[in-house]
C-alpha cells in the first residue's frame, strides 16, 4: 500500500477517461433559452417581493374584497401577475388567503424558491445579495422547496443550500422538467393560477410568456 499503489491507481485513472459519449442532450439554443428564462424569473421574483412588501405595508387584506374592491384587487394583482410566475413561492404565507396550489401539487420544485430565499435572507442577512448557484432542473413527486446560493463568509466561500422536504414525503430521484405559473386574485375573492409544465427534455414551457396575460384576463370573470 502507499505511494506505489497510489501511483498505479492514478495512472489508471488518467488513462480511463471515456473517449466516446452519447449525443448531447442539449444544444446552444437550449442553454440560451434556459438562461433567458431564468433571468426573466429572477426579475419577476424581485418584482414579486417588492409587490408583496407593498401589499403588506398598505394593509391590504387579500380575500375579503367586495365585488368592486375585488375587481380593483384583481386588477392590481393582474398588473403584477408576472410576479406570481413562480406560483406559490412569490406569495408570502400570510398574504394569500385563497388556497393556491403549492409546488407539491405539481410535483415540481422551484429551482430557486423566491419565498424560501426571502425567509433565508431574513434569517441570514449577509446572504441577501448572494448569487444563485447553478442547480439542475429537478422535479419530484410530493413537492419540496429549495434555494442554493453562492456565498462568501470572510475567507470562506461555497454554496449555501436550504432544502425543505415535507414530512412523510418519499425520497426519490427527480427528472428534468420545467414549470411556470401565473396567478391572480379574482373578482369573487378567489384565486386563479395558470400553470404550464414542461414535458420536454429541453425544459421549454408551453405558452410561458402568455401565462400572466391569461391569468389577468380570467381574474375579473371569476
Amino acid at each position, binding site marked *: 500500500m502507499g505511494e506505489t499503489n497510489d501511483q498505479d491507481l492514478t495512472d489508471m485513472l488518467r488513462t480511463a477517461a471515456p473517449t466516446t459519449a452519447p449525443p448531447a442532450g442539449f444544444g446552444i439554443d437550449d442553454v440560451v433559452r434556459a438562461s433567458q428564462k431564468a433571468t426573466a424569473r429572477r426579475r419577476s421574483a424581485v418584482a414579486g417581493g417588492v409587490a408583496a412588501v407593498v401589499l403588506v405595508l398598505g394593509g391590504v387584506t387579500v380575500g375579503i374584497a367586495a365585488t368592486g374592491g375585488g375587481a380593483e384587487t384583481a386588477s392590481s394583482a393582474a398588473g403584477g401577475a408576472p410576479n406570481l410566475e413562480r406560483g406559490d413561492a412569490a406569495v408570502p404565507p400570510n398574504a394569500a388567503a385563497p388556497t393556491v396550489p403549492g409546488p407539491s401539487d405539481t410535483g415540481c420544485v422551484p429551482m430557486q424558491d423566491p419565498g424560501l430565499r426571502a425567509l433565508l435572507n431574513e434569517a441570514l442577512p449577509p446572504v441577501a445579495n448572494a448569487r444563485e*448557484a447553478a442547480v439542475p432542473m429537478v422535479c419530484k413527486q410530493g413537492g419540496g422547496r429549495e434555494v442554493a446560493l453562492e456565498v462568501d463568509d470572510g475567507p470562506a466561500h461555497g454554496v449555501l443550500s436550504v432544502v425543505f422536504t415535507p414530512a412523510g414525503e418519499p425520497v426519490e430521484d427527480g427528472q428534468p422538467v420545467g414549470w411556470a405559473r401565473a396567478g391572480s386574485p379574482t373578482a369573487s375573492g378567489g384565486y386563479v393560477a395558470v400553470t404550464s409544465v414542461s414535458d420536454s427534455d429541453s425544459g421549454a414551457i408551453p405558452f410561458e410568456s402568455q401565462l400572466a396575460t391569461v391569468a389577468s384576463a380570467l381574474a375579473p370573470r371569476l
Partner: protein
Amino acid sequence: MDTSAEQEFAEYFDARRDTVRRTAFLMCGDWHRADDHAQAAFVALHRHWRRIRGRDDVRVLDAWVRRTLMRSVVDESRRPWRRERFTSEVPDAAPARDAGDGVATRETLVTALRSVPSRQRAVLVLRYFDDLDVAATAEALGCSEGTVKSQTSHGLAALRAALGDGIDDLRPAG
C-alpha cells in the same frame, strides 16, 4: 447579450461542451444527469457571460465552469431526494477475462468512483481525469490546497477499497 457576445459564448460552448459533459459523467456516472449538470453550468455561464468574459482568459472561463459544475454535482448529492447512499457492498470488479481491456477498465473505475464520497470524487476527477494541479483543483472546489491533498489521499483509499482485489486485474500487463 449583444450579437458578438452571443457569438463568443457559442464558440466557447462548442469547444467545451463535450469536455464538461465528460467531467460531469465521471462525477455522477450517468449521462442523463451529466447532461443536466453540464447544461446548468452553461446556463449559469451564459447568465454571467458579460461579466466573466471581460477577463479575457479562457482559463478563467474554464475554471468558472468547472467550479459551477462541481458545486452543482456535489450539492445535488446532498439533496434529500437525490442524496447518494454509500454502501459497504462494493460493486463487483470486472471479470478477470476483461483485464487489460480499456472499456472494461474504464467501466470498472467509473463504477468504483461512484462509491467514493462526492467531494473526494470531485478531487480525483479534477486531478486525474482533467489533469489539474493541486492549486487549480483547490480553486475549482473553493477549498485550500491542503484540503485537496487530504481529499486526494482519502479518495484514493476509498477508490482502492471499492476496487478491492479487482485492482490487480486492472493494472496494465507489463
